[in-house]
C-alpha cells in the first residue's frame, strides 16, 4: 500500500514531537544555569540553633514543633543537640540573628516559589512600613 502525503505527515510528526520535548530540553538548559541564592549570614554568630544541614532541610518542621511546644505545652526553652539552650521564638530568637528578612528568608523562598505566611503576623526584624 502506498502512503499518500507521506512526507508532510512524517515532517509534521517530527515537528510535533520536537515541540513536545522542547520544554524538557530547554528546561535542562535553564536548570543547569541555576545558582544557589547567596544568603547574608549573621555577622556576629557562627552557629545556628542546629547544624546548617539540619536547618536547611528541617527549619520548617522545627518551627512547627516550636510553635506547639511553646503555645500548647507551655515549654519555651529548647535544648539543641549540643546541649545549648534557646528561647523558643521565631520573632525574638531567630530574627535577632537573621536581622534582614529580604536578605535571608526571601532569597530561598522566592527561588523555591513558596510564600510562607509567617510574616502575616510575626513582625519582621526590620519592622513594618
Amino acid at each position: 500500500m502506498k502512503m499518500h502525503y507521506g512526507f508532510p505527515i512524517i515532517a509534521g510528526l517530527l515537528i510535533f514531537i520536537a515541540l513536545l520535548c522542547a520544554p524538557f530540553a530547554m528546561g535542562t538548559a535553564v536548570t543547569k544555569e541555576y545558582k544557589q541564592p547567596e544568603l547574608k549570614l549573621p555577622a556576629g554568630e557562627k552557629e545556628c540553633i542546629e547544624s546548617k544541614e539540619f536547618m536547611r532541610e528541617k527549619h520548617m518542621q522545627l518551627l512547627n514543633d516550636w510553635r506547639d511546644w511553646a503555645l500548647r505545652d507551655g515549654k519555651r526553652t529548647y535544648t539543641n543537640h549540643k546541649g545549648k539552650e534557646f528561647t523558643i521564638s521565631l520573632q525574638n530568637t531567630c530574627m535577632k540573628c537573621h536581622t534582614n528578612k529580604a536578605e535571608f528568608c526571601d532569597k530561598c523562598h522566592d527561588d523555591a516559589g513558596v510564600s510562607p505566611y509567617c510574616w502575616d503576623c510575626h513582625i519582621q526584624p526590620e519592622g513594618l512600613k
Partner: protein
Amino acid sequence: MKNDRRTFIKLAGIAAAGIAVAPKAMASSGQSPVKVNANAVHAKHWAMVIDTTKLHTEEKIAKLAEVCHAIHNVPNVEGNKEVKWLWSDAYAHTFPEQENPHLSEEVHQRTFPLLCNHCENPPCVRVCPTKATYQRPDGIVAMDYHRCIGCRYCMAGCPYGSRSFNWGEPRKNLDLEKLNPEFPTRMRGVVEKCNFCVERLAIGKQPACVEASEGAIVFGDLRDPDSEVRQVLRERFTIRRKPTAGTEPSVYYII
C-alpha cells in the same frame, strides 16, 4: 505445645507494650529537647480578683486597656468592628442577672473592667472545631492563631462577648511605628482575646493590667489556699459574671 503458644502470646504482649511505652520513656530520660522556662511562674489554676471599689472609672480602666492593647498589638478600630482584650461597661451589662431595682446607687454607677474570664468550663473551647481555642492545664484559655479559621463559633459560644473578630487587616489599624516588636500581630479573619498574659507569665512577670492597676487587681493560684487571691476571696465579698451560664469564670469582682 499449649504452653508454647501461651508463652508466645505473653511475649508478644510484652513486646507490644514495650513499643507503646518506649518513645515516652525516652522522652522522660532527659532526651526531650524542650522544657519550661527557668524563671516562669506557675499555678494549678490562674485566677484574677478585681477590686471594683478601687477600679471603677472609665479613665482608669481605659489606661489599663491602653497598656494591654499596646503590648499585644491590638488594632484600634472604632464602631461595631472593634477589637478589644480589656474594656469597660456599666453594671447592668456586666452583671445582668444580679441586678435589682434598689441596688446601692454608688455600685450602680461604677464602671466595670471586662476581659476574658478564662472560664473553668469554657464553652468557646467546646465549640471550636479546630482546637485553635484550648484550655491549658493551668486554666488559661489560650488561642493558637495559626489554627483559627475564623468560623466564629467561639464568639457565639462565649456568653461574655470576650472575643473579637478581625474583619479587616489588623495592621491597617495599628500604628506601625509603635508596634511591640516582641509580640506578633494577627491576620485578617481570626478571632482574638485576652490571653492572661501567658507570654509574661513565661518569663516570670505578672499580667500587664495587674502590674498597672496599682493593687486594684490581684492575680494568683486559685488552688493554693495560701495564695493572695484566696486570701482576698476569703476576706471580701465577690461575685462573678453570669453565674447561670455555668462557665465558672476565673475572674472575680469585689463589690
